[in-house]
């Protein structure tokens, strides 16, 4: 046990300040009322759905919870069921084999809900494109509030996307 405590003390606290939201990432006018967002604050529950990615976006979503980014320290956590979630974080492209599962996951998420599409593929600009097995962008299958480009987007960019979605749109104010 003392080795564990020693290592914790040796490393110290690494967490960096969270990035600010970025209006440029917003795809749809705020679907959630400002009131609701204020109520939600940052006590946000996220369900991640890989709808067909190459798994690099998953690596970066994982990284948002490492000690440097410490997403959970902001009150935002990943949950095991869409029924517990306020937000879906979806990576793509959406494969046709995942289309139905993504729709059902969206339907299982209680209203009001937010969707953030992650990565160039999720945004519809990925290398896989649309084809016999791929529906392309997440927004081709379910409504998207915020889209974060990048291949893959780094953890700070993913956090910016999440924080943009839970911040009332500047235009709406």
């Amino acid at each position, binding site marked *: 046990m003392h080795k564990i405590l020693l290592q914790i003390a040796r490393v110290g606290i690494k967490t960096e300040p969270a990035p600010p939201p970025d209006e440029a990432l917003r795809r749809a006018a705020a679907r959630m009322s400002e009131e609701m967002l204020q109520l939600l604050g940052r006590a946000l529950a996220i369900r991640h759905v890989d709808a067909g990615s190459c798994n690099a976006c998953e690596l970066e979503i994982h990284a948002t919870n490492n000690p440097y980014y410490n997403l959970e320290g902001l009150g935002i956590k990943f949950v095991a069921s869409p029924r517990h979630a306020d937000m879906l974080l979806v990576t793509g492209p959406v494969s046709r084999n995942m289309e139905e599962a993504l729709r059902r996951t969206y339907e299982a998420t209680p209203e009001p809900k937010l969707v953030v599409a992650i990565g160039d593929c999720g945004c519809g600009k990925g290398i*896989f494109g649309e084809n016999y*097995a791929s529906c392309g962008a997440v927004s081709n299958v379910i409504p998207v509030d915020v889209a974060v480009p990048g291949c893959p987007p780094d953890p700070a960019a993913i956090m910016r996307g999440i924080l943009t979605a839970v911040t009332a749109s500047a235009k709406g104010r």
Partner: protein
Amino acid sequence: MPPVVGGLRLAPLPGAVPAWRASVDSDGLRRVCEAVAGSGGRLGALWASDERDRGAGFALHAVLVAFEGLVCVDVRLEGETYADVSDLFPAAGRMQRAIADLMGLRAGMRDTRGWLRHGAWREDAFPLRRDVALDARLPAGDPRYAFVPVEGEGVHEIPVGPVHAGIIEPGHFRFSVVGERVLRLEERLGYTHKGVEKRFESLSLEEGARLAARVSGDSSVAFSWAYAMALETAAACKVPERALWLRALLLERERVANHLGDLGALGNDGGLAFGLAQFSRMKEHLLRNNAALFGHRYLMDRVVPGGVTVDLDAAGAGSILAEADRLEDELRTLRSIYYDHAGLQDRCINCGRLTPRTAAALGVVGLAARASGHAIDARVFPGHAPYGELGPRLCSHRNGDVAARIVVRFEEAFESLDLQRKILHALPSTPTLTPLPEIAQRAFGIGWIEGWRGEVLVAVEADAGGRIRRCHPHDPSWQNWPALEHAVIGNIVPDFPLINKSFNLSYAGADL
């Protein structure tokens, strides 16, 4: 020296790894597979191509891993059937089902269920045939899937997925359990099938590198190198020394990054969240160094046909050496914490055992094979430049359990740090990129790289005008997914996440 395979006339393929090629008729496949299996060889990959537009029929292509190197066999088919080889190589089963879904060629297996097809297209549509367009809107088929039922008193099923509870890729696991013990696990994959092989055929050989880097994002360097090696084989092109050494540096950095990530996740799944916090911090540090030195956290698109797009100056080398010293020191501390932690060891020892015998029978490769007592590592044997000069140490363990796969990861991480040091101390001073000569139509090449998970194969055939005629990228997960079904038998359901993580297989890489 070429392998002796049942009277086959083998033509050597030029390139970085020892490889030979032969052409046989439809009866030949079975004969060749019997010969290779009989002498202890394995199946590397199996795929099909449509040659009807060139006045032939369909063709099958097998890469067999013999002791001496790779044997690539092209099989000319007269009809749409061929001889099943899954009794010789169990890993062939799913590859044959994928071939049936994509190309409509059947091996006469008892298992005729779709593998990649699901309901996205009908049983009578074959999207990889050349008369189907990449963007064809195929009518939806029947999505139902008949899992193998397990019957008996008290047996019940637990369906999991495709959307899992964690941040992982999609797949379906069907557990048949009695009480808390797993009697049987059946995997159903293919959810991330997004037409990768068909997409390759719409790209130029040069553009293909970007797609190869995204077959499985966690193995980007391995796939990029294998793709580049395949093109360099097809072009009979010699890559500058410095480029090869830098490729090895990037590949070892990819290995360390993934091993750090897995060691953290395994600690977490074993109830030691401290491990996740520590290892994910160390991994983040390495990724940030990658971004600072090479411009990408996961080193995507840094390895290209003809060389690499990055270089390293003395200051950069210094920062990697400093990082290696720090990581080694921290790894030693964390290794002693992991090995001394009674709770973690209790979860990992004898959990999810894959015996050496089962691993051999299934043709398991890579890290999982080494943790089950098999001395397989393409960097060590047959090896390719620059690994011959680096002399990597093969790390293995006999027990085949979760603990063994943790040990192998620790030891390989240490070895990778050492290899990085050796590379930086002897980095040759040559250019880093050479233009690839024009690649003739029908030229064929193969790449074989030991990625962090296991051996990655990429086979490419060129078309006219520098286009891709056919490209088959092959992830080691094809071979290792069936092993997970065996490793989990008799374990309790709550240990599945830990066992699964200890293999950490790619869905995207095998769903294509």
